[in-house]
């Protein structure tokens, strides 16, 4: 699922992201990038995630694990 990380990186406008990166620590983390991630997860994994749920994940790795387990 490297595709997942590259899409997160693209939204947050960084070259790459790692499992241990904290989502809210990115310079470009804001309401718009958060919505863009929610939309990407919905489009690519058919998972409709609330903003509250998204911020309950601390790191990129935790989010990816959940999406992988629950999405299609």
């Amino acid at each position, binding site marked *: 699922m490297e595709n997942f990380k590259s899409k997160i990186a693209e939204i947050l406008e960084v070259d790459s992201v790692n499992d241990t990166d904290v989502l809210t620590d990115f310079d470009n983390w*804001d*309401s718009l990038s958060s919505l863009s991630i929610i*939309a990407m997860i*919905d489009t690519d994994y058919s998972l409709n995630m609330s903003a509250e749920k998204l911020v309950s994940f601390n790191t990129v790795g935790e989010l990816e694990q959940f999406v992988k387990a629950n999405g299609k």
Partner: protein
Amino acid sequence: MNLTFKNKRVTGILTVVPAKEVRFEDEMGNYNFTREQSVKLQKIMGFGAHRIVDDGTCVSDLAVFGLNHLIQNGQLKKEEIDALIFVTQTPDFMMPATSFIVHGALGLRHDVYCLDINQGCAGYLVGLQQAFLLTEQANINKVVLVNADILSRKVNKRDRNSFPLIGDACSITLIEKGSGSEQPVYSTIKIDGGNSNVLTIPAGGMRLPSSAETAIEEQDEKGNIRSKDNLVMKGDAVYNFVMMEVPPMIADLHELAGKEISDTDYFLFHQPNKFMLQKLADKLKVPYAKMPFNVVEHFGNSSGVSIPTAITFNLAQELRSQEYTVCLAGFGVGLTWSSMLLKLGNLDFCEMINY
């Protein structure tokens, strides 16, 4: 809830927009966002220019202006109006209802059924449903449906979440009894009052009257500034709601009508922003050419009025000479989500004018 209406015709649609146009670029400085963030927001959401009323302009001003335009052009005769429905969330007064104000301003006869409806993004559909029901009466042949909102006056200019997309507008739609040969109109409506706090204006009603205290501006955790007198929208929750409920609603509507989604010529939806409409089109596998999403970019989101705005801006000429199968959908405050599948066209008028 599924609804079916027989022997109904929409015979004309006029949209009135304020002449005053404000550009997003000129407002970026009002928001707690860097220029880079604002440019990105603009690109994704499709912000361009929006139409805003001057302070002091009310929905009845737009409505009377539009109705007089139709009367002067011979497209509407006062004495033919049997019912006047006014759908708005921004009435002139708490009392009397705005339909009465319009009735008085036009000098309509006493034999007119007047009704105000407090509805938002699904208001155009609720208004059509009520207009169709009224024409079941023997004495009601022609219904004037006015849908107007001037929510810019209730949104804080430093609320980046809502102000860039808001627009003011008024639409006037004529509904008449059909000749008997019309195809039925199919419609759906659902309500989730448990989530009514997703879109609200907290103060100004009887629960929390406006006061010096409710006018105090505060900043939320995302940097948006607003007071309790202002509109507040939980944008993320609206996004989740729309993506969850609207695609199955459109599928159910077509099933109710015994049609395929691919048979429908146009999907004329409420216009929250370009981003959400593109996502909806993708989910429904509808080509972008069949689902206009350019209203926010040119006029702003005028709640329920964004549907007739999308119609008169994109299809004015076509709808005067041809007929199409169109799917309308509105979704928002309530929460309410509603849809309608009908034949629309050969209209006596379909245009847009400036106030």
